[in-house]
């Protein structure tokens, strides 16, 4: 009876977009990982075979999520969050190192990436916290607590996986929707600008520019709004930040981090070494032209020139084999999915499910944007997968859980009321 109502209320648009993206993703993984010799598509020794297995596993997973009582996730969100945090902390002790990153737990032949699952756990925890009627983000105490929920997992992930850490930071946007003061975002925004500038220019120029801008802003604003102390503090902070970026970049960052930024800023030209990835990635996408080289016809893809093509660089296969036309379609599908979830989120009756919907949209968006920007050479190389497309069981399953918990919530909204 309950299932019946759930099925009727399911937002089939989200489900359809999800299915199309997963299918397209698998086709591209198939192309990117197809070996020269004949194989079956169910060959589990092949990457595409494994991914097909993960896709099949996600079907019962979806059914389970849709069958569980709608209240379950709200009730258990704290526990799920704590389990996720513990599993992240456990990486420091039991983690298995794969490709220089200690992001995995290994169980025999298959490994698990807890950071992926921490995403929906954090989203649930944040939603649960925000769902509390007492929480008011105009009060600093609640601001700190909410930000704490976000940055707790960041602290645990950042040391070995800066990409995933970035993902969590995007949840700040959700808090803004719920009333977080704008200056948080401004601070973040200015910090990013200053950060990029301080990598590009000498610190002294940035400090001078900041001084000029501060003075201009001070005298442009209405006299009653002028606050000499605040202006001075902002200027001092910018100056300090500038020099600390310089320090962090040179002293705290490891060489491969520095390289990634340098490539992006056009400072490195070594296309054999560190620049190889991004160069080959751009070549693959760029050689696609209007309509691409055709399915399984990508020479960059076949030749395996793009490293990690089936995972973080899967979009290069789209670009090369499906061309500009195919890329537009994929981008449009992603944007449609994200905006649809946002639209549904605004429609939610409870604050809990609205915040959760926002979290889902933010997480999907930040993955999509950072991944494509990275593939197209607009963003430094960070390990951020393209949702539903990139190869990986942990990733696919966690995105499936993330999305379908929201589908369930959305379908339940009538009953809850």
């Amino acid at each position, binding site marked *: 009876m309950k299932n019946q109502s759930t099925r009727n209320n399911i937002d089939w648009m989200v489900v359809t977009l999800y299915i199309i993206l997963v299918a397209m993703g698998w086709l591209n993984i198939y192309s990117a990982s197809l070996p020269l010799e004949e194989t079956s598509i169910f060959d589990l020794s092949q990457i595409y075979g494994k991914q097909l297995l993960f896709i099949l596993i996600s079907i019962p997973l979806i059914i389970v999520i849709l069958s569980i009582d709608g209240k379950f996730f709200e009730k258990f969100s704290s526990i799920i969050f704590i389990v996720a945090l513990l599993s992240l902390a456990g990486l420091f002790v039991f983690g298995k190192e794969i490709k220089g990153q200690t992001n995995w737990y290994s169980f025999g032949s298959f490994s698990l990436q807890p950071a992926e699952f921490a995403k929906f756990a954090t989203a649930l925890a944040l939603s649960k916290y925000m769902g509390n009627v007492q929480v008011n983000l105009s009060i600093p105490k609640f601001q700190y607590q909410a930000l704490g929920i976000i940055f707790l997992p960041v602290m645990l992930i950042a040391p070995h996986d800066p990409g995933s850490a970035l993902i969590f930071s995007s949840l700040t946007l959700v808090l803004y929707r719920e009333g977080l003061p704008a200056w948080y975002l401004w601070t973040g925004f200015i910090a990013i600008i200053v950060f990029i500038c301080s990598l590009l220019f000498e610190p002294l120029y940035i400090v001078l520019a900041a001084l000029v801008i501060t003075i201009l802003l001070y005298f442009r604003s209405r006299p009653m709004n002028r606050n000499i102390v605040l202006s001075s503090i902002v200027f001092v902070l910018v100056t300090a930040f500038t020099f600390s970026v310089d320090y962090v970049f040179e002293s705290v960052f490891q060489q491969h981090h520095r390289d990634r930024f340098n490539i992006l800023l056009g400072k490195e030209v070594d296309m054999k070494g560190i620049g190889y990835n991004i160069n080959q990635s*751009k*070549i693959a996408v760029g050689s696609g032209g*209007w309509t691409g080289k055709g399915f399984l016809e990508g*020479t960059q893809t076949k030749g395996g*020139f793009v490293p990690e093509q089936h995972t973080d660089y899967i979009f290069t296969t789209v670009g090369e084999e499906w061309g500009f036309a195919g890329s537009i379609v994929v*981008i449009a599908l992603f*944007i449609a999915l994200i905006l649809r979830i946002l639209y549904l989120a605004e429609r939610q009756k409870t604050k809990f499910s609205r915040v959760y919907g926002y979290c889902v949209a933010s997480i999907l968006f930040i993955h999509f944007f950072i991944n494509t920007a990275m593939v197209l050479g607009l963003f430094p190389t960070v390990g951020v997968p393209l949702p539903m497309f990139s190869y990986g069981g942990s990733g696919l399953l966690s995105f499936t859980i993330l999305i379908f918990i929201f589908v369930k919530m959305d379908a339940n909204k009538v009953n809850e009321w």
Partner: protein
Amino acid sequence: MRKVLLPTIIIVSALLILARLFYLQIVDESLKLKSDNNAIKINYEYPERGYIYDRNDKLIVANQPSYDIMVTPKDVKNIDTLELCKLLNITKVDFLRIVEKARVYSPRLPSVFLPQLNKREYAAFQEKQRKFQGFEIVKRSLRDYQTHAGSNIFGFITQVNDKIIQDNSYYRSGDLIGRQGVEQEYENVLRGVKGVKYRQRDKFNKDIGSYKEGKFDTIAVQGEDIKLTIDIALQEYGEELMLNKRGGIVAIEPSTGEILALVTAPSYDPSTLVGRERSRNYTKLYNDSIAKPLFDRALLGEFPPGSPFKILTGLVALQEGVIDEQTTFYCNHGFSYGRGRFMRCHGSGPHQLLNGISQSCNTYFAQAFMKTIDKYKSPSAAVDIWSNHIKSFGLGAFMGYDLPTGKRGLIPSSKIYERIYPNGGWRSTTIISNSIGQGEVLMTPIQLANMMAAVANEGHYFTPHIVKKIKDHSIDKKFTTKHQTTVDKHYFKPVIEGLFAVYNGGTANSLRIEGIDICGKTGTAENYSKINGKRTQLTDHSIFVAFAPKDNPKIAIAVLVENGYYGARNAGPIASLMIEKYLKGTISRKDLEVKIYSNDLQKEYAKYISGQPFGINGR
């Protein structure tokens, strides 16, 4: 307001990504090229070059395999340079220089690293090839000559230079191309078309199959065999006869214009320009600025034709109606003309056309020439009419034969004299030397031979050509088109009788061959050279033109021996021997042959560069 921020960011970001995609996929063309460079390797398959046969289907130019080591600088990785150098017997400096040069040409295209390995080097390298990434062996074919003669006809094949690669997209570094001779003229026929195979590579440079199922691949097209008009036995014989002499022999079949022999002397064995020694040998030949073995005298040597030109003087005079067979001119060891000038002649007495020719009387032809010019009021108009008659024998212009080099020769027209004498005042006597082939006229040996072919045909000729057949195709139509001279057929009869008399009591009486009726004409051309800046007369060029047999001629020939003295001394015997060789296949006049073989002119040539005073014409 707060609801709008996230959707706005999402849409702006999506547009940013789309703009970037548009830039990379549509605007930036370079990425497509880079992609091809990455993943597609072009393998060429070289077809075997066409064989060359002589007119009797004797194989004269075949092929032998040759192996080049090619280097693709981009792919050279982790190799033991020292081992490679040792294996190929080169120095490390050489190695670096060659690889650097290849890199400048193209880092991703193969360049020749070491050309034309011998069998031992090839075997040694092939065994260890897998150790040297970026190096590969390409098999090509080099020429394998079945004769020591004909180098000037064949030309040679060589690696393309940078300019050719730039100008012609067919050729890649290391490709071979025909230079000079038939190899150059028929390059496209002989070389065939190389096959192209596009192979896909992975990042390890490993071949992972054909590109697009071989949609763009092409199969190599075999080079086509060529059959020359040359009789290689005659060619070889001609080159032997010309040993230790300088000059040329051209033999043409009058009924077709087919070149039977094209001899230049000195010459060289064509196989000296094969293989890795080619470059050094070529330089040696090139630097011989005195004997000029690379200078094809048969095609490029412009000489005053001397007495054989009298044939044309006579024919034009007949055509113009200023003389007939009975016209008699008196010769008293020459004759006076103009203001106290005198043209010497070796004989004397009254001459008609027949013995004018057979005795090669200067007086006779000088007078006939004067009559021809003086027929018209204006010497300019007269010279142009005369000049057009002469040119109708294929003279004074490129002949249009199928070899890449040639000279126009010179048949003067009124323009030339108007330039020399801008104030006028020139007339027939001024230009009278032309009547006996001295003056301004210049001809190449092949033009002389062609003139004889036209005479043998009694008024027409076919453009001389060197290729008889290309596999199954017929030859260019221009070689089967009859060119009519402006002299009517019946005027040739008396002249031919005169040429026959040359061999029968005339200047070539001693050169008769039993059983063959030869018509010929001796020539002795005065010539000058600048020695130490001073115009110095050298020993006369020995010239002879002939055709045989008299009825239904099979061969027309011109022989020129530089500084060979009078016509019957060197050129005449050679022409007779060549005719006998071609018509009979054997030589009955062994005495003549011995005389020619032993006639070494090197001493004569040495005199001119010795710096010492010297006598000429046997003195």
